[in-house]
């Protein structure tokens, strides 16, 4: 660039400085905007990666429709380049929030720190009575740390399909139904559903995620097996190298372990079912035998009963005959008694006539008695008058006596 050319440039700028400034600002804005976008994007990737590393998030998750067993875990831990292999258990349960039924994924915490929830407040549960919940639950239920939460396991779907024998009925997988909230946590496997910005989205559709200690649950199969790889910690989770490293192991697992374990599990489940079937068959045979015996016994009883019935019928006939004879005798007696009764009635009537005669006589006598009484009354009145006169004479005499007596005393 020669001198005069430089002069031209500086003059172009000074003469049209407004235009130049506009272009500078536009360019600066554009550059800043693009840089910002790129940088914040990268920053989010790095933050997320650090978070995953810190919470020791899995590299590979293995799921099975039948669940996974300890043998599966052992088979996987023999692989090269594996840091940790752990089976995990979680179950869909329910809880009541504001009167509504909400679904909850109840997860058992890893005791080796795998997929460790990020504690926002409080602490992770340390005993069987404690639980850690997500922020979303606390907000929606209005509860806080120290409150209790009640969960209900969803078992009716299973019992309806399986046979209803008591021994096959599903036992609750969690020891308690009521827990004390000890911490507010962020589920590292589902940082989307808490309403926070995230780059991963969980496919699980439950409303909340709760965490309990391993001791709080009893289970014999794992719902998932999580693997971490030795060489992936320093790789960015969103880089191609990471994907490649993980994909290699996945391919190996799918090629070498998957089939073998699937077959083993299939035959194990099949064998279990066969044993059950055999047991049931044996039981059935026994029951059938018993039933046959009972049948035979019953037949015997029936035959006996029939004989008894025949005998009874004979006896009945005999007794009916006897009874008919007794009936006839009784009727004859009855006739006789009737005749006697008629004769007695006649006597009764004769007695009655005599009684009437007696009564008439009685009435005549009564009249005579009345006449006699009236005579008596008249005589009695006469006597009474004579008596009263006599009394008066007596009283006069008494008075004389009393006066004479008084004169004497004086």
């Amino acid at each position: 660039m020669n001198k005069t050319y430089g002069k031209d440039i500086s003059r172009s700028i000074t003469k049209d400085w407004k235009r130049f400034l506009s272009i500078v600002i536009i360019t600066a804005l554009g550059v800043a905007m693009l840089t910002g976008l790129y940088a914040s994007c990268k920053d989010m990737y790095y933050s997320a990666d650090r978070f995953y590393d810190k919470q020791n998030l899995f590299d590979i998750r293995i799921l099975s429709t039948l669940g996974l067993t300890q043998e599966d875990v052992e088979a996987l831990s023999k692989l090269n380049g594996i840091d940790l292999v752990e089976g995990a258990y979680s179950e869909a349960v329910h809880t009541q929030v504001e009167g509504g039924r909400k679904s909850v994924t109840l997860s058992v915490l890893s005791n080796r720190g795998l997929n460790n929830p990020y504690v926002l407040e409080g602490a992770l549960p340390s005993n069987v009575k404690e639980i850690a919940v997500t922020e979303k639950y606390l907000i929606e239920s209005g509860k806080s740390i120290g409150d209790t939460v009640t969960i209900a396991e969803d078992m009716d779907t299973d019992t309806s399909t399986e046979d209803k024998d008591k021994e096959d009925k599903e036992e609750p997988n969690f020891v308690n139904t009521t827990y004390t909230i000890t911490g507010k946590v962020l589920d590292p496997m589902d940082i989307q559903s808490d309403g926070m910005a995230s780059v991963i989205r969980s496919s699980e559709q439950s409303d909340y995620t709760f965490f309990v200690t391993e001791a709080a649950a009893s289970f014999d199969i794992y719902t998932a097996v999580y693997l971490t790889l030795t060489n992936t910690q320093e790789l960015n989770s969103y880089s191609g190298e990471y994907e490649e490293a993980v994909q290699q192991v996945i391919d190996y697992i799918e090629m070498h372990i998957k089939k073998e374990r699937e077959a083993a599990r299939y035959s194990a489940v099949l064998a279990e079912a066969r044993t059950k079937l055999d047991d049931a068959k044996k039981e059935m045979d026994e029951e059938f035998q018993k039933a046959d015996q009972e049948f035979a016994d019953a037949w015997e009883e029936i035959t006996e009963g029939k004989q008894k019935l025949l005998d009874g019928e004979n006896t009945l006939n005999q007794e009916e005959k006897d009874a008919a004879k007794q009936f006839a005798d009784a009727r004859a007696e009855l006739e006789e008694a009737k005749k006697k009764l008629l004769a007695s009635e006649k006597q009764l009537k004769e007695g009655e006539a005599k009684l009437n005669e007696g009564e008439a006589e009685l009435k005549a006598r009564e009249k005579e008695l009345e006449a006699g009484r009236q005579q008596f009354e008249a005589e009695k009145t006469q006597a009474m008058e004579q008596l009263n006169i006599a009394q008066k004479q007596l009283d006069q005499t008494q008075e004389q006596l009393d006066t004479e007596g008084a004169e004497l005393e004086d």
Partner: protein
Amino acid sequence: MAYIEFNHVIKQYNTEGAAIRALDDASFTVNKGELAVILGASGAGKTTALNILGGMDTVTSGKVLVDGKNIAEFNHKQLTEYRRTDIGFVFQFYNLVPNLTALENVELAAQIRPDSLNASETLDKVGLADRKHNFPAQLSGGEQQRVSIARAIAKKPKLLLCDEPTGALDYNTGKQILQLLQDMCRKEGITVLIITHNSALAPMADRVIHFKNGQVVKMVQNEQPTPVAEIEW
């Protein structure tokens, strides 16, 4: 051997359907120190020929020899070098840098070539000694064209190419410019090629080349060129 030799040059534009030939087997020669006038109607291929000669366009086939070198075979870098050192170009509309004074415009050209003329002296030669520090906007059309010519010759080019140098000027000013170009040719010994559609200019040239439909139809050697001052049109 001629200083400039156009040898069976074909320039073809491939548009959809038909191919158009701007130059169809054109051939001419110009000797060193000559003033050549290229005549022809619009679309006859004059400007295409000049652009090729000035290293601003390429040929489809044929040879273009300038001072013994075939510039048709030059690559981009060689063409840039060729334009910078060997060619002076005068345009119809001057193409001066508006932010630079007359002197600076000439300096701009002089500074891109190692062995150049003094800018101030060059402006004295074209008669602009007292307008050196004026900006193009402060100069008349004729004066601007003079600056343009000064700028072209300050590089000491082998070849001065002028595309309708009087096209935007009035009769008298045009005449002065043509006089200047003729003087440059005679005094400085520069080979000058002038493109024009004005056939009245033919007598001032040593050599007149007629273009028609992309071909050179006539090339006339003028033994006794007329001074510009005597030409009327």
